[in-house]
């Protein structure tokens, strides 16, 4: 039991930050992200004995997290609250500068199918193959989505910075 606790603590300390960030980008909402991270680590604890390879811990946790998020959507179907509307308002953070906030908004507006592989690459540094394995997609699909995600972001951010330029000029 003691050994399991130590293992669990190490796992939490090493990965909770990136898992939380990824959860945030899955849900676009801080408190929801925290909730599913709690659920994820709870499930991780229960199944900790099945985790043989410490290197696999990251993708193992991501798999649990994604499942938790999917469950949340199943539950959401019965709620009348429109999740996307709620999340946008909860998204604003005051302690970041305007440009970071703008990029965050742009990422938040990406279609989830594009945002997910991009965040696996940006947050976890996953390769195309690793993303494909994680999301159970073929590699070409992953590459196309990464390509489109960046192309869209570039377009949105360039046009909005041009707009800002017009407004200030």
């Amino acid at each position, binding site marked *: 039991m003691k050994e399991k606790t130590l293992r*669990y603590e190490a796992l939490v300390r090493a990965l*909770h930050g990136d898992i*939380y960030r990824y959860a945030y980008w899955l849900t676009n909402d801080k408190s929801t992200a925290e909730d599913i991270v*709690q659920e994820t680590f709870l499930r991780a604890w229960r199944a900790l004995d099945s985790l043989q390879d410490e290197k696999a811990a990251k993708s193992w946790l991501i798999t649990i997290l994604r499942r938790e998020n999917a469950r949340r959507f199943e539950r959401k179907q019965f709620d009348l609250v429109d999740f996307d509307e709620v999340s946008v308002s909860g998204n604003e953070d005051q302690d970041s500068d305007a440009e970071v906030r703008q*990029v965050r908004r742009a*990422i938040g507006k990406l279609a989830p199918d594009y945002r997910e592989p991009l965040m696996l690459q940006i947050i976890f540094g996953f390769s195309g193959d690793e993303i494909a394995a994680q999301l159970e997609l073929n590699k070409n699909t992953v590459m196309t989505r*990464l*390509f489109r995600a960046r192309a869209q972001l570039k377009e949105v951010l360039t046009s909005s910075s041009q707009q800002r330029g017009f407004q200030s000029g």
Partner: protein
Amino acid sequence: MDELEFRRRIYTNPADSDQDLVDAAAQNPDNEAFWQEMKQLDDKLKMAADIPVPDDLANKLILRQTLREFNQQKRRNRWYIGLAASVAFTFGIGLTAWQQQHVQLDEAALAHMYYAETEQPHGTAEITPQLVNAKLAQFGAELDPSIGHIASVNYCLLDAIRSLHLIIETPEGRMSVFLVPEHDKPMNNDFADRSYHGSSYALHKTNILVVGDKGTNIPAFKSELKQHLKFSA
């Protein structure tokens, strides 16, 4: 590598540092400029993706788990205590039931033999055939005195049943006869232990057990007794 392919690869991963990408950038300033632009975009993305994590999240996760584990442990302990209690309870019930279980009559008779060995004769009144038959009358029985000298006649409890114990001096030795007024008690026809052996038969709702020292001729005495002990009812 044409410009379209270069851009596609850079969009997919600006951190890709394959030699053919490096070469394509070196050959074409537009490629190089695009790559730099995308690297800058990626830096911004990394910064933006780096959402501040709640300070106490790690501690919360660990604390919650510790508390949950502690509670489960407590619940598990309670469960064990419950199990232990019910095992003890069942054992108690079983023990009581076992203790209340009746021993067989022959075992009771054999056990009584050891007790009777140390028993002092009650009173000094001489045991007459009249006295013996007065007691036997309660069982509806009568004993022909010619069977031998009656050394003792006493009531005793065999498995909580009031029974009559006669000790008769015979040419075979001292023989014990038990009359037990219950006909449906479990009993072996022939029985023995380390010192005594015996045999039983039933007559008129009465069980009759004959017990003697090891080596005495029980069958002979039994047939003798059958001739001398008569039931009137």
